[in-house]
């Protein structure tokens, strides 16, 4: 693969690749072929969050850069808007970032070989790119190397150039043919990715340009940016191990490498679909999809759900997406969207277990202040707790709601349902049932049967001697008289219906405690699946 590379890629003006990386070597072209290797000499065991995240900014690159390599389904999926295209908004720095900056300037951490200006420039770079890339909140600032470490690492990189060439990358067996070809490309593109990924390499560039435009410019030169494959990473790790082993009599002096990052994995998989498998060991980056890919996956799944309605497949795919998001510690609006969509689909299909898992996550995500359809889902929570008759959880939900939220339609509706049922006001309950926003009806349908029984018990006790069947139909909101009659028949109430001059009457006085039994059973059997 290396030979297929242009021996000296013409540096397009302004590109990171040219400006940052090639510059030290341009004077000595003999080094150029070795560039590929340089990434292996990186002292970082795991890629810094900053590397592949840059690829997030250009999720469209897969489809655009190598259209021939992709299956029709993939190309059909419309690429979602890249995160970096989001309008620049006023930034509030999270505390984690503040801490990071503080940490950088702690006397203990200062390095006299690195000047303060360099450090400040590096800090600014790192943080700006994190902000622009939209991963400010997902990145683990605790384990982020300090700017001085980055600068040192950079210097080291230039020293470690003269190392034996790497083993040629092998195509992992699990990837499908189209992806495999892209994997190959990827390995050859490695240097490029690396260049793009390391924002600190070009100090001349304007900071703001970096994230937004690198993708486009790379596309112009028709080079696909790809993150490292599993194998390369493995090699990198091995290499580092080896280096460490010989550290004692190693001729080139190297600064001690920063401690291995125990932060979240950063995925490198480019495959859209992935079967769900429960993790029993730390995840392998090559089998984890980065956010850019997951965004495409989501589009694909939405489309597939519309067209095929195969819940088993969809659920499996969503679970693997959730897993990928979790292991990479991605918690943003996209995460919320994934969980919301999965929750809706699960709700539609009555898969309460998955639904609950999603709801639990959504609650936590909303609490972190991540935007989404929180009103809709909070309303579902209330309805669900009515279904499970979970009083203490209901109390908790009430405690969490703000006055403003209580006035919003979905939540107000759910609260009205709650109070109507609490007071036994079936009349109001069935009016509300008829007027349920969003997908709340799926939840209401779970307990409307038992509430009808309760209402029937009420009616049978209170009304004498009888009521027209039409009254039951209307009060208990049946579709038709036939449905109402069927409901009564289903509970062995055939003797309670009587045809009187063409109108059917319901003999309430005769019913006595007829519906008490079924009512008690219906209320006693509330199946609580999943945790919430």
């Amino acid at each position, binding site marked *: 693969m290396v030979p297929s590379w242009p021996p000296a890629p013409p540096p397009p003006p302004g590109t990171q690749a040219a400006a940052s990386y090639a510059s030290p070597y341009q004077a000595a072209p003999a080094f150029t072929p070795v560039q590929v290797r340089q990434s292996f000499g990186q002292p970082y065991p795991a890629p810094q969050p900053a590397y592949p995240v840059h690829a997030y900014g250009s999720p469209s690159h897969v489809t655009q850069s190598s259209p021939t390599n992709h299956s029709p389904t993939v190309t059909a999926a419309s690429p979602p808007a890249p995160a970096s295209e989001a309008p620049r908004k006023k930034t509030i720095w999270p505390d984690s970032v503040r801490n990071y900056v503080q940490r950088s300037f702690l006397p203990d951490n200062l390095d006299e070989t690195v000047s303060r200006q360099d450090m400040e420039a590096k800090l600014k770079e790192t943080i700006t790119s994190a902000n622009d890339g939209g991963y400010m909140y997902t990145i683990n600032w605790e384990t982020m190397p300090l700017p001085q470490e980055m600068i040192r690492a950079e210097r080291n990189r230039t020293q470690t150039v003269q190392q034996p060439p790497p083993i040629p990358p092998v195509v992992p067996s699990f990837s499908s043919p189209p992806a495999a070809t892209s994997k190959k490309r990827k390995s050859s593109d490695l240097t490029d990715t690396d260049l793009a990924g390391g924002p600190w390499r070009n100090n001349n560039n304007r900071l703001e340009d970096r994230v937004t435009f690198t993708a486009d410019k790379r596309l112009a030169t028709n080079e696909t940016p790809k993150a490292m494959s599993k194998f390369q990473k493995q090699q990198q790790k091995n290499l580092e191990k080896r280096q460490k082993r010989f550290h004692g009599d190693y001729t080139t002096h190297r600064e001690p490498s920063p401690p291995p990052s125990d*932060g979240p994995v950063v995925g490198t998989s480019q495959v859209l679909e992935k079967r769900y498998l429960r993790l029993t060991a730390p995840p392998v980056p090559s089998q984890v999809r980065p956010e850019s890919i997951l965004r495409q996956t989501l589009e694909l799944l939405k489309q597939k759900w519309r067209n095929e309605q195969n819940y088993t497949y969809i659920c499996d795919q969503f679970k693997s997406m959730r897993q990928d998001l979790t292991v990479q*510690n991605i918690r943003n609006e996209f995460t919320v969207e994934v969980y919301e969509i999965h929750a809706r689909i699960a709700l539609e299909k009555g898969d309460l277990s998955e639904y609950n898992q999603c709801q639990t996550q959504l609650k936590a995500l909303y609490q972190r202040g991540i935007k989404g359809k929180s009103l809709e889902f909070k309303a579902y929570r209330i309805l669900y707790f009515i279904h499970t008759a979970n009083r203490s959880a209901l109390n908790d939900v009430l*405690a969490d709601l703000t006055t403003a939220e209580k006035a919003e339609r979905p939540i107000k509706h759910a609260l009205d349902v709650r109070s109507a049922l609490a007071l036994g006001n079936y009349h109001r309950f069935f009016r509300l049932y008829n007027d349920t926003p969003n997908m709340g009806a799926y939840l209401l349908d779970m307990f409307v049967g038992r509430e009808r029984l309760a209402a029937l018990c009420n009616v049978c006790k209170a009304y004498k*001697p009888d*009521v027209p069947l039409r009254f039951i139909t209307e009060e208990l909101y049946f579709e038709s008289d036939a449905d109402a009659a069927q409901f009564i028949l289903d509970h062995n109430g055939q003797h309670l219906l009587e045809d009187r001059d063409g109108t059917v009457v319901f003999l309430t006085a005769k019913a006595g405690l007829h519906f008490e039994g079924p009512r008690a059973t219906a209320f006693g059997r509330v199946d609580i699946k999943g945790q919430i």
Partner: protein
Amino acid sequence: MDALFDDFSGAQKKCNGDLLSRTVTAGLTNDELRAIWKTCNAYDVKDVIKHGLQASDIGRSGAIPKEELKAWVDVYAVYWKAVGELLAVRDTSNDNRRASQASWAKVYESWKELLSALIKGYNSSSFESWTIPCLYVTGKYLREFAIKADAEKNSTQDNAAEPNFQDDFDPEAQQNHHLEDCARQLNRVFNTCLNDRAPLENSRKWGIYHVINLLFKTYFKLNSASLSKNILKALSAGRGDMPPLEAIPKSQQVTFKYYEGVLQFLEEDYVQAEKHLTEAWRMCHKDATKNKELILTYLVPCHLLTAHTLPSKKLLEPYPRLQKLFLPLSQHIRKGELHAFDLALQEGEDEFVKRRIYLTLERGRDIALRNLLRKVFITGGFEEPKSEGASPLRRTRVPIAEFAAGISLGCQETLDNDEVECLLANMIYKVMTHLLTVFWTQNLMKGYIARERGMVVLSKSGAFPGTGI
């Protein structure tokens, strides 16, 4: 440190657990703590303590076996270290804490070590049962430090994302990290007490109610009150071997009964809840205003549902907060002011929800409605007497429209007749369980709705049972 040795010696001589527990307390002034801290350093702490204990009266008398004395040396060595951490935190203000590396988390960890050392002392069965106050005193402080450590952690927002191999995030993983751990530690203490096989008069089981109360407090704080159920189950499983509740200090009895009552309350078993809470109320010290207030917070709603009784002004007099909570509602219930009741409930909603009594108080609306309907019924007056001299009969056939008018009083919206019928049907259908007569239930209203005629036909003998009419 010398004071500590003296206390130890004195306590051991008299088998005085409370005195002994004072040797492992955190409830000392900074000066006292510093006095302990300064007696030794990390290298000679064990020697100093060993010599100190051996040189004390009890040590010289040789009354304590060597093994046990060694275990006590371990305990006090850990205590000394914990004192150091506590001093470090107390001596530094909040701002300097980061730099000085002192933290409540460290205090918590060192206190946990102390608890472990104690538990170890018991499990190797050398510590005698009269020393158990040490266990729960330590547990008490452990809980305090856990809460402080969590508060400290949440305020610094150190949301260090740990690697996660699960499918989803655990949303509540870190928030109450220390307190959850504390609950686990207290559970160890609970089991240490529960599983003591020694004869009862000499058993660690005497400490069990103290520990349970600590656990209850912790579980409630963690918002997982349901876990308390497991404790009660374990307790009732070994009920026969337990010391009777009446034999432990009153303060602990009250706490225990209070939590037992609140647990039942949360499970909607108001009859049982009322029983336990009433016991707690009766035993509560007359000056423990705060505790009495807490008990009443749940006892008043209980009474409302079980006996339909409302708190009197005199009862609530010493508790301005409870007056604010309950008096408006009570008044509206009493007068049957339905709409005003709704408003009052809404007004106090946040406060009620916080105390977990909202859903219970809401059910007071039934009684307010009943009182309103009763008024309508009374206003209806009497039937024309059928014969001279017969006692007058109330008009028991009441048009639904009259009730509808009554319900609409004071509020803007008018309910349609179907909804009014629905409310009436509820009154006829609903039963209220009385505390004194668990097996005898009565409805809120006796009668039936004749829909065709738009009438409610009420019972001639007690249309509203329990209200004298």
